[in-house]
Structures are given as structure tokens and as C-alpha cells.
């Protein structure tokens, strides 16, 4: 009960922001909250936000863990393209669905292993280590698709992108179940503590007996796995692998989702759930701008404005100033607790 309350307090700013944005959209587009069931599926703008936000939400799960270790993974967009290309190529060859999925996910894990190796064993700065794959990744994806857009017709693979289960689109179910599963796995074990300790001080963590290289590698592999799932969804959605555009600049959206979710880029404390809410905030903004008939040109400016506002709120300097002003009331709180 106590932990649920703490989670609620942690997520409060994100939920307020999401609610505000949804309200704003609702004011300019009153039909926003209306849902309808057709052919056994839910339809509506809200479902659309959940569905379209799937790739960024998935990427944000892995990105949160990587950022918590004081790292960053710039390669996820390119890894999405590689995994999508591998899946499409395998499907075109006529491989069974299971093999296609295993290949795509294996590729994602391999990319993550490579990034993790560079960061943990060779000790390369994460930005640069993952930049290598970001630059080369799209080239590799094009190598797999041989420069063309590979289209496929496997109904099983297409189901991942546009199918529905229990009236909800598959991508929504995938990111929701995966995100919650990872969050529970990390929070209910000592993993979150170890990850945060690496992010705060890697050397001290190693000296106190944490297997830093293994954990770092696992973090980047998780990010690779998330990228593979996101790549599968995007590829299955358009029924083809587009090496040039699949996941283009999504790494930035994913990082943004994590930052909006309140996880510091300097590593340490993190919340996967908050990042998922952050991903939904970003998608709500995107969808909202489209629905409201606002020129899409303003999309990026609004995004930039949101980042700046969140930056200002999270800035250590502002925080110090805020603590200075609220010190009195807080002091009273503490004194009260102590007397209890």
C-alpha cells in the first residue's frame, strides 16, 4: 500500500501533464474521447494514441534502464530498421513465423550485446559507442533488404502490427504487457537497486561487488530487445521493411519520453511506468496536433517547448531555489513526522 502511494506521488506530475494535454485536445476536438466497437474491435482517438505510441513506448522501456545506468542508446532507431529488415527477409524466404520472430529478436539482442560490449568492456562513452551502430545500422538494414522495400504477406507477422486481441490492437497489448512485465521484474527484485547504483557511481558499485559489466550488458540487450519488438510492430504495420525510414529519429522520441517521465539523464533513480506515461504524452501531443487541424509544421516547435518546460522544472538549480522557498513548510512536515 505504501509503495503504491509512493508510485502515485512519483507519477503525479506526468499524469497531470497527460490529463492537461488530453483536456486541451478534447476542447478543440470534442469527439476525442468517444469509443466505438466495430467488428469486435475498439475504435477511437484514444485507442489510436495508445496504438501509434507503441514503438516509442517499447523503446522507452529499454531506454529508461539504459539511462538509469548513466548511459544512452542512440542506436535503437537503426536497430529497429535492422530487425524489421531481418524479419521481412525471413518472411519473404518462407520461414515459419516462429523462426522469423526468433531471428528478429535475436538480431536485436545481438545489437544490444554489441553496444553493451563497447560500453562495459571497452569502456567507451555510451553516446559514442551507440553512435557507431546508429550510423552503420541503416546501412546494414539496407544490406539485408538489398536497398528495396521488402514486402511480405505472412498473416501471422501482419497480425502483430494490425491484429487485435480482446478488442484491443496487438501493439497496445504488446507494449503494455511487456512494459509492466519489465517494470515488475526490475522492481520486485534487487535489479532496480543495482541498476541505480551503477548509474550513480559505477566504480563504487564495482568495488562493492556488483557485476557491473554483466548488468550493463543486460541493460543494453534489453534496449536491443525493445528495439526488435518495436521494429517488428512497425514492419508488420506497413507489411514491409523500409530500411531508410523505419524507426527514423525514434531514438530521440524515446529519450524524450524518458526525460518527460522524470528520469534524469545523469543516471540513478528511474521509473519505467513514468517513461511509458511520458511516451503517451508525446503521442497524445502528436495525435492532438493532427486532430485539431493545427498545421503539422508546429509539431516540432510544440515538442521543443515541452522539452524546455520540463527541463526548467527538472533543473537542479530551479530545484534548489524551490527547496529554498518551500524549506519552511517541509521543515514543519519533517518535525511532525519525527514527533510521531
Amino acid at each position, binding site marked *: 500500500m505504501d509503495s503504491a502511494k509512493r508510485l502515485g506521488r512519483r507519477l503525479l506530475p506526468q499524469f497531470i501533464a497527460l490529463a492537461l494535454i488530453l483536456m486541451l485536445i478534447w476542447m478543440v476536438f470534442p469527439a476525442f474521447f468517444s469509443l466505438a466497437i466495430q467488428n469486435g474491435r475498439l475504435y477511437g482517438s484514444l485507442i489510436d494514441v495508445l496504438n501509434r505510441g507503441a514503438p516509442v513506448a517499447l523503446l522507452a522501456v529499454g531506454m529508461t534502464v539504459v539511462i538509469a545506468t548513466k548511459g544512452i542508446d542512440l542506436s535503437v532507431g537503426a536497430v529497429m530498421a535492422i530487425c524489421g529488415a531481418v524479419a521481412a527477409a525471413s518472411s519473404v524466404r518462407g520461414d515459419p513465423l516462429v523462426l522469423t520472430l526468433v531471428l528478429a529478436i535475436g538480431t536485436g539482442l545481438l545489437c544490444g550485446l554489441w553496444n553493451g560490449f563497447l560500453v562495459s568492456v571497452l569502456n567507451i562513452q555510451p553516446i559514442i559507442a551507440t553512435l557507431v551502430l546508429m550510423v*552503420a545500422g541503416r546501412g546494414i538494414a539496407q544490406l539485408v533488404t538489398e536497398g528495396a522495400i521488402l514486402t511480405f504477406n505472412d498473416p501471422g507477422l501482419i497480425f502483430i502490427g494490425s491484429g487485435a486481441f480482446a478488442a484491443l490492437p496487438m501493439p497496445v497489448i504488446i507494449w503494455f504487457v511487456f512494459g509492466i512485465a519489465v517494470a515488475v521484474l526490475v522492481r520486485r527484485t534487487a535489479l532496480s537497486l543495482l541498476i541505480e547504483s551503477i548509474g550513480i557511481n559505477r566504480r563504487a558499485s564495482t568495488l562493492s561487488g556488483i557485476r557491473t559489466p554483466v548488468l550493463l550488458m543486460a541493460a543494453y540487450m534489453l534496449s536491443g530487445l525493445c528495439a526488435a519488438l518495436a521494429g517488428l510492430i512497425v514492419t508488420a504495420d506497413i507489411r514491409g521493411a523500409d530500411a531508410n525510414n523505419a524507426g527514423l529519429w525514434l531514438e530521440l522520441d524515446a529519450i524524450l519520453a524518458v526525460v518527460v517521465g522524470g528520469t534524469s539523464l545523469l543516471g540513478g533513480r528511474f521509473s519505467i511506468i513514468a517513461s511509458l506515461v511520458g511516451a503517451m504524452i508525446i503521442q497524445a501531443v502528436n495525435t492532438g496536433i493532427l486532430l485539431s487541424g493545427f498545421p503539422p509544421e508546429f509539431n516540432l516547435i510544440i515538442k521543443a517547448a515541452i522539452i524546455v518546460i520540463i527541463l526548467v522544472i527538472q533543473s537542479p538549480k530551479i530545484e534548489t531555489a524551490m527547496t529554498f522557498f518551500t524549506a519552511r513548510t517541509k521543515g514543519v512536515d519533517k518535525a511532525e513526522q519525527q514527533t510521531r
Partner: protein
Amino acid sequence: MNQKYLPLIATLVIFVLAYAVCAFQYPNMLSTRVAGNLLTDNAFLGIAAVGMTFVILSGGIDLSIGSVIAFTGIFLAVMLQNTSIHPLAAFVLALAITTAFGAIMGAIIHYLEMPAFIVTLAGMFLARGMAFVISIDSIPIKHPFYATLKTFYYKLPGGGRISLIGGLMLFVFAVGILIAHRTRFGTNVYALGGGAQTSALMGVPVGRTTIMIYGLSGFLAGLSGIVYSLYTSAGYSLATVGVELDAIAAVVIGGTLLTGGAGFVGGTLVGVLIQGLIQTYITFDGSLSSWWTKILIGALLFAFILMQKGILFVSRHRRTHA
């Protein structure tokens, strides 16, 4: 020999070797025409990369330059199309805007103590968004002054020509090298890259230097945008996507340490030229697909990072045994 020159020398050797291999296969690569075009085609990247070198030397990163280049291009195109303002005045205006833009990012990074990565990411979105708001079309620039500027070039023996923009890039590199090694600002940049706290204790004006570094990067990105608009004779808000990555790659391949504090502006020129050379080779070959460029640049990037790690390791090893 001084160890700090090792990465620079390695880059130079690789460039010369690569050029030799290319020239061996295609003797025409040795012509001054190819050399001249190598400068012209990579002029905008080179100029932007000088700014990126300063940013990385100081231990930061600037993701906004590709968007700023596109913004400058579309800004110039629309200004010249809709007003009767002289291009030179428009250039000054564009440079003022981009310099202020960079300086504001620097101020946010310093005063709000935010990571450069996320601040310049916001700058990247903002500049690209501003470019979209100005116009989403590709607008040609037909001003006679542009045609005049294009007629300025220095003819090399053998028919090659160093165009105005190619020459400008070399000039910017020369000035960049001077600033980095012969001015107080340059020394401050290196000191900042060595450690912000240490340099502050040594009396480096951290705030002013940070703002100047990002202002300089913004200025050079604006200049690069002007060069790009001269190069393409058009402004397009979707142009130069991802140029910041090419610039970062050029800086790393040029031997600058990504943790900041060590490296050379001159190395970045070689880094830019190596990337240009790969592209030229692929054009000459004709059968290789363009995606090999990306894979090769990625591989080179990896090789240089490894080499830097190796040098660091060796020098530390020696120091402990000395």
C-alpha cells in the same frame, strides 16, 4: 615524438593511404578536379564540423546543427524571394539569428545545469520546426548575386577549381586552428574539456566560455547554411537531416577525444575529407550501393575510438611505470 599527435597522424596516414588506393584503382582520382570537388562538396559539412570540434573539445555536444543549416537555407530563400533585401544583409541577419540561438542554448546548458545533449536536442526540434513554419516547400534562390558568387573561383593547374565555398571552408579551418591554439578563448575551451570544476577553480570563466562555444557553433552552423544555400541554390526545410552525426563522426575520426580536452581542429578537416573520399570512391565505382558509405563510416568511427582507447591505455600504462 609527442603522443598527443598520434591520433592526428593516424588519421592523416589513413587518408593518404585511402587516397593512394583510390588513385591506384582510378588514376583520375588524382586530378585536381576531383580534389577541388572534394572541397566544394563537403564545404558545408566542414564548416559545421569546426563548430562541432569546439563543442566536443569542451566536453559537450551539439545536435542542433543540421536543423540550423536547414533553417538558415529556408530563411535565406524566403527572404530573398519575398523581400528586396540584399543577400549580404540577409546573410548578416541569418548569422545573427543562429549565433543568438546557439548562445541561448549555451546559456541554458550553463545556468540550468542541464546536459548539453537534451538541450541541443530541444534546439534541434525548435530549429527544424521554425524551418517548417517558414515554408515546407523547396524554394529556389534566383538572385543574381548568387550567380555572381558562383563565378568566383581559383583555377588550379589541371582544370580543377577551388570554388568560393571550398575556399571559405579552408579559411574557416585556418581561423578555427588559430582560435583553438592561439587565443585565450581556445585555451579556456581545452581547460573546460579537461574538467568544468577544475577549470572554474583555475579561474576560467565557465559561463561565458560555454555561451561563446555554443554561440560559435551556432554561428558556424549558420555560415554552413549560407554555404549550403549557395551550393544548392535553394532552401528546403527537410535538407541536411542528420548532418550533426556526420560532423560528430568527422570530429572523432579527426582524432578529437570525445570526453573533451584533447584534439585538433585540423584533424576534423581530414575527418571530413575521409568521409568525402569514401563517397567519391563509391561514385567512381558505380556498382557499390550508397549504403556502404554509412557502414564504412561506422566502421571507421569504431576503429578510431578503439585506437584512442589504445593510446590512452598505453600512455597510462607508461605513466604508472615511469
